[in-house]
């Protein structure tokens, strides 16, 4: 593999508990190339979401290093991590996390506006491709779960990130809807050239990724 886009080395993380710290990640190491897709699987509590959060700059590590291109993510301060999330890494949440008071159009463009690289034409394309063109003036509460997740994917891709992180993106959707949403996500991710790291329990979804990484008790199995 050429120079990886994402490089994770010996990542450590533990959470405090009443009877001492509980290790969640114990020396996780892996790489991800630009444009590549990777499924991160493992049993509940294996550290998948924690790994995703640290890679996305949502949480900090106790030890080890995460690099995105030339940027040492684990060395960034709060402001630096915020800038990273704004423009280079984008997360698709299981709970969608749309802004309920903004309509679909505004939600779709929101992160791109935040990053200062709003491209109306690209947003229109995304809306059309995601089947949202007829729903732009609706509010999230007026959409089905599948539609909301498509808005979340659109918002993520509107900013044209280098890395898309997806945390159980179909966890709140039925099988058929989930499958359609994944098709769209993979298609659009491929078009933007972004890498995708997807946390999932679903073997069906994992099988759609180019690579698969299994975590067990905080280690790569």
């Amino acid at each position, binding site marked *: 593999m050429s120079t990886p886009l994402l490089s994770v080395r010996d990542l450590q993380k533990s959470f405090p508990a009443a009877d001492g710290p509980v290790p969640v990640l114990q020396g996780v190491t892996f790489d991800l190339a630009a444009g590549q897709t990777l499924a991160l699987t493992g049993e509940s509590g294996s550290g998948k979401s924690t790994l995703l959060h640290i890679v996305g700059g949502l*949480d900090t590590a106790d030890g080890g290093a995460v690099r995105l291109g030339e940027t040492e993510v684990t060395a960034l301060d709060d402001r630096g991590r*915020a800038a*990273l999330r*704004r423009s280079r890494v984008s997360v698709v949440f299981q709970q969608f*996390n749309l802004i309920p008071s903004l309509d679909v159009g505004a939600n779709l463009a929101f992160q791109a506006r*935040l990053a200062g690289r709003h491209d109306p034409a690209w947003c229109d394309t995304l809306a059309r491709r995601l089947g949202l063109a007829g729903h732009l003036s609706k509010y999230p509460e007026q959409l089905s779960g599948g539609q909301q997740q498509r808005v979340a994917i659109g918002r993520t891709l509107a900013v044209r990130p280098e890395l898309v992180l997806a945390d159980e993106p179909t966890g709140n959707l039925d099988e058929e809807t989930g499958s359609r949403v994944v098709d769209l996500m993979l298609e659009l991710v491929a078009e933007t050239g972004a890498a995708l790291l997807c946390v999932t329990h679903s073997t069906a979804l994992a099988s759609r990724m180019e690579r698969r990484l299994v975590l067990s008790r905080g280690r790569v199995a």
Partner: protein
Amino acid sequence: MIGATLRALLSHWWRRPFQLVTLMVGLATATALWSGVQAINAEARASYDRAATTLAAGARPRLVADGPIPQRTYIALRRAGHDVSPVLEGSAAGLRIIGIDPFTLPPDDLPQDTGAGSIGPDFIGEPGQLLVAPGTEVPDSLPPATEAEGIPPGAAYADIGTAQRVLNRPGELSALIIAGPSSMTAPPIADIAPTLRRTGGTTTTDVSRLTGSFHLNLTAFGFLSFAVGLFIVRGAIGLAFEQRRGVFRTLRALGLPRGTLLALLSAELLILSLVAGAIGIALGYLVATLLIPDVAATLRGLYGAEVAGELTLRPAWWLSGFAIATLGTAIAAAASLWQTARMPLLAPANPRAWSRASAQALWLQAGAAALCLAVAAVAWGIGGLAAGFVLLGGLLLSAALALPLILRIVLRAASRTAQGPRAQWFWADAEQQLPGLSLALMALLLALAANIGVGTMVSSFRLTFTGWLDQRLAAELNLRAETEVQADEILAFLGPRVDAILPIRSTELPLAGAPAQLVGVADHPTYSETWPLIARQPDTWERVNAGDAALINAQLARRNDLWPGAMLEIAGRDMLIAGVYSDYGNPRGEAMVGLERFDTLFPDIPALSFSLRLDPAGIEDLTRDLRDRFDLPESNIMDQASVKRASLAIFERTFTVTGALNVLTLGVAGLAILTSLLTIATMRLPQLAPVWALGFTRRRLAMLDLGRAVMLAALTFVLSLPVGIALAWVLLSVINVEAFGWKLPLRLFPLDWLRLLVLSLLAAALAALVPALRLARTPPSELLKVFAHER
């Protein structure tokens, strides 16, 4: 980034207009009540200041006598080289006439902004000219008037000659202003006019001192209303922050720095507070406009202080309105901003009841209540008016802070003893609702306690005051002659037509270092049998009538700790205090001596005033005959019934303002309940849907919600009763004593409480009606969504 984020934040209010209205109403109402009171106070202070800048206030030293100063004395002093200027003051046609000599009066003492232009030939010549404040009505019987700035309301400036004519006091002067240094060769003033004495003149300070307590009372009520309003603001802001927790988390997850988020939230709050502040200031102006006539009447009736009946918009006032709105928002939002600043990025985004206090937090709140109570106790120990208000505030705040814990204990106990699952759920659910409603219930407690406290104080006062008036106003008729000659003629006329003529003399003088009044009264059973003494020595009246002792009013006694047996210096002579009498409505100190003693002390005071005892049936005829025969002005003859009527009218007007603020505060509390119920109603579905699924009808659930609101209001009322009574006691026994110098017995009025209970239950039921109706009409599909979202 900023534009997109602001849009996201503000869109919350756009999508929840009711919440925005709640916040605006709360903040605007709080600002309105506060700034309304401040506008009234500012107007009064400005009136006092206007008065202070004029010579009438006696800013310069002046020469006075115990009676009128003959004009020839003035001429003699001027000829001898003393730079004095004459002043004559008196009342005519409801105006305070101030006669001046524009040629000898220092220019600084002329009314401000009047300038020399207004004092021209018309002012000095015949028929003369009056200078009055804009808007002053001048009857045709007086010389023509010209409006000029800087004249105190209710006053009219005239040339000294004009004033002597208008007041019918030819050749008389009230005082001589010392306008400048005397000539080096001038003989001492005492050689020319031995009866004159020099005074510093501190009338304005006296007015400020006397009215200060009244304004402090108003400010305290304004602050209470503001605090109650802030409960709504706190509720609305807290809820808005809680509902947006998910948005905040998403914004942060999408790359918005924490500092930027907090700065934008602060900017959002600033914008909201400025808009609500502007509305509040406009409403405050309206409140002040409605209340100021009553305030002006009260200040005039109670203290003789003139306050303009119209409001002026002052920049300082509206700026302070914006400041208080912003400060109030900052106080109300501080905790929410702090929580947002500390919120971990990966915190659960599900909205939880923002005020869902843990047991630990409730106990912490109870600890704060105990601390407030301790502060109140310390303030009680310190004494003084300011400490009295700290005691009041501490009591109210501690009761409000302790309320949620007390209600929780009561509801938990009820839940444990409840029979059947429905009752158990009802009480348990009420406890679950408590955190969301506690701010509104605390506001209700404050409003109810203030209503009970002030209501009890006013009713106790009214009862005592009415009884006191009957004692104090024993004489059927009081009259005042215009001159001594007229007085002699009246006495000759009255002789056979009345049972007794009781001469009264009075003069202003300092007592125990403060301005006061000395009254000389006749030796008659009218006084010895009815005068309302609250402390006395044996043979009180015998000693007073013999000229050995004096009586003083309760104000003078309490302020200086002078009680029967103590000595008081009166006009340079130490006199024994033989008794203390109650003297409600009089803010000044007063002493009474026998008539003969008075005449010894002040031989020059003319005998012009008399109380008359006669058969009440003859009052009307005698009054008419006196007016017809002696051409006495209306105000010179007062019958007992008129005086009582006037006194009670002043009394009622005095409490009109506090009564109005009381009602407004209760209204604000009712609004707080309504808004709280409406806002928590939106979060109630997940709690109600399972109960509905288990077999409750929506109608039954709605009825239970209505009943719960009424029950909580009733419990709050029960808890507010002891707080209100304690408040009344503080007002009657601490604040009144410190502010006015009189102490009143506490009387209880259960019927008034019952009325208030019904009113508060009605308010709670009305507030709960809309959310209950909404619940009753909630489609089952909405309730089912709760289960769908649980996956």
